[in-house]
């Protein structure tokens, strides 16, 4: 391998991880939500809200506040979703899509220069207003884990990233552990498989579902924050570009396991970063649209392959998408 191709591989891996983290954080959250039997199609909109929140709050109060506020905003949207889908038992698909449109619309509004400027001014008058009009915010700094980051090829990809990349990996491990090793996780998974049975066993089905939707949505909010301050700190409308929906399909690809979501997310992160690199190398330079389709095409192809491999019987949580009511 030539030095040039070696650094190309290293660059691809690095951007695979940094692009993949968007998917990772969102799909770990969605794994938790769906394991409890609720499908949250709203994460696209919640990510957009997280992104716009992090844009404004970073300018006003800095990164940490931005991340926490994005999580909080996500949680509030999650609460709304849970109220509609768990308490009122509305169709989860409809609720999710409504939340997506709400989030996309509201974030687009908040991101316009005038609104962003006013928001910034009211939050922290000390910050110069023009910063909001520039639609930019400082990127999260890289935190290099010195000893390991020197390892060739994977070292830089994994250990020379910003703090949210590490947090994303940690959340995958943490939520895998909670789901599959703890009492809470067992209750949560039982609610997603058979809520009536969990109910008779004394599990509070409604509380579990509320919590699962809220936690998943908070993570979607953080994923949006990462998308902006950790990945592409320049605000444009439709910044998320359906990444929330890709994260949803990655949940299926990783068969509802946060650990497998790591591999799935980084794989798709790789595909996404390839689409920026391939045109540079000649192929597709004139028709970038074709290459921009790549992640979506690959999503469909992978789902088809999984469906074929499992003969159409993807082991989804048995009660996924089904509202629960005690009377039935």
């Amino acid at each position: 391998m030539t030095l040039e191709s070696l650094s190309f591989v290293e660059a691809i891996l690095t951007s695979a991880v940094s692009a993949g983290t968007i998917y990772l954080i969102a799909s770990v959250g969605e794994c938790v939500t769906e394991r409890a039997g609720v499908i949250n199609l709203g994460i696209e909109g919640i990510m957009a809200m997280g992104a716009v929140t992090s844009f404004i709050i970073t300018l006003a109060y800095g990164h940490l506040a931005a991340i926490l506020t994005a999580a909080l905003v996500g949680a509030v949207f999650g609460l709304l979703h849970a109220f509609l889908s768990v308490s009122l038992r509305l169709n989860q698909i409809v609720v999710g899509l409504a939340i997506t449109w709400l989030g996309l619309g509201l974030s687009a509004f908040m991101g316009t220069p005038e609104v962003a400027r006013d928001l910034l001014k009211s939050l922290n008058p000390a910050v110069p207003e023009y910063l909001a009009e520039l639609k930019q915010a400082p990127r999260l700094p890289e935190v290099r884990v010195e000893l390991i980051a020197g390892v060739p090829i994977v070292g830089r990809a994994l250990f020379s990233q910003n703090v949210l990349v590490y947090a994303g990996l940690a959340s995958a491990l943490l939520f895998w552990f909670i789901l599959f090793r703890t009492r809470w996780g067992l209750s949560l998974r039982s609610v997603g498989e058979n809520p009536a049975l969990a109910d008779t066993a004394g599990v509070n089905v409604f509380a579990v579902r509320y919590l699962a939707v809220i936690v998943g949505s908070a993570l979607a909010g953080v994923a949006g924050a990462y998308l902006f301050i950790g990945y592409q700190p320049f605000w444009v409308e439709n910044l998320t570009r359906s990444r929330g929906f890709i994260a949803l399909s990655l949940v299926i690809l990783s068969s509802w396991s946060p650990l497998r979501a790591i591999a799935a997310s980084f794989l798709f992160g790789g595909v996404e970063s390839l689409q920026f690199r391939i045109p540079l190398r000649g192929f597709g330079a004139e028709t970038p649209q074709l290459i921009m389709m790549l992640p979506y095409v690959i999503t469909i192809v992978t789902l088809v392959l999984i469906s074929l491999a499992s003969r159409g019987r993807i082991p989804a949580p048995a009660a996924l998408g089904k509202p629960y009511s005690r009377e039935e």
Partner: protein
Amino acid sequence: MAEDLLERPGPSPTSIPKVEMRGIVKRFPGVVANDGVDFTIYAGEIHALLGENGAGKTTLMNILYGIYTPDAGVIRVRGVPVRLRSPRDAIRLGIGMVHQDFRLIEAHTVVENVFLNYDGLGFIPKWSALESRLEEIASNYGWRLDPRARVGDLSPGEKQQVELLKLLVRGADILLLDEPTSVLTPIETKMLFKTMRRMAEEGKSIVLITHKLSEAMSVSDRVTLMRRGKIVLSKPTKEATIEELSTAMVGAQLIGDAGLEERQSAPADGAPTLQLSALSVMGDEGVLAVKDADLTVYRGEIVGVAGVSGNGQTELVEAIAGLRKPVRGRIILNGADVTGASPRRLMELGLTYIPPEGKKWGIVPELSIYENVALRVARYAPYSRLGVINWRKVAEVAEKVVSEFRVDTASIKSRAGSLSGGNVQRLILGRELTTSKPSLLVAAYPTKGLDIAASEQVRRILSKLRSEGVGVLMLSEDLDEILELSDRIVVMYGGRIVGVVGRGEATPELLGVMMSRGVAASASA
């Protein structure tokens, strides 16, 4: 059946009964399910609670398990009056119930199912310790159960053991088993009876809710019989006779009215209607569920398919009905090769299929009765022209179905889902038979879940078809029914047809051996 296997020490009633239910009344809209019922359970006894479907046994036990609150009556547990508001209250008092349909999470392991929301589990449960605890209990009862196995991979008998484990780890010593043998093989049933006996020896009390007389007679110490919400008889099993119980159970209205003589007539006339040759069918799990099945059904005979569930019977009839494509082999219907043909073509060639669980697969519950009839006829003239349904014609035929097949309903406009199981089954049969004249009827578990009278009516319809020259292929879980109705009995085991036994040679013992071991016994020459 397992009488000689089990030594019976007899009940040891201590001074205070474990459970005393006095004057229990429970009303549902339009029906009194329990009408002043007294029921007593002693320590160390197996108590059979006998009765037909709808007699009120399950209601009574659901009251004891805290699922229903009684409208009147007193419950004392170990002498203390109690109010049971939920199953959790019951469990706390040591009362546990195993339902007929298992309440398990198939995707989870045995240990996860057993310890779901178990008190004292700790935030990070010590799974290995819990697993060995389950192994210990399992070995006490002689079960071979892997605590790490996924419940979805277990046999019905093993799933039942998981249900029992759930109760045992929570310290239940009053165990209510609702029709526990309905899904078990004869061998698993023996195993369960041994377990029950062992539990009784340990001082636990077991209530066996059943409608099978032979079971009550063979395993219980005491038998209590319910009919129409009341106790009609309660005595030590030793002092009861089968005749006495069966008369008390059905209330004598059916005895002598069974139309048996009618059913014995009409031998096969010789013309084959269905021929299977070397038919192999894939199951849902991706392994062959039916292997090289050869079978001929003649007009004017009933062929019963016996087998423990999950041995390929369902896949076999689904392949015949065109719902499942065969992998190999051929299906000939009235001389035409119909391998892989669509259900509609099969129907037009003279096949009628009665699916299992009529309420689920045979009707659309949300639609009215006449709309459900339309589903079958609307494709054909005179019920439709150029795709436009003639609802008047449909209503006429629906009225005919309802009256000729005695579907008990106020109107053909009623929701089909509001009908009882027996009425649904008569609606399905009526819909299929009123509008077409089949040469072959394939019926998958046509009497499952029906009460005695409704089952009897279905059986009469089947024998009437036979005498009219229709070939009938029938699946049933009820060996007595198969023996009673069939001219020939096909036994399936592991996906193969392991034997065909003629009417005269078949005995429950012979079929039981063939069903559970797959050997074609010598008698089936």
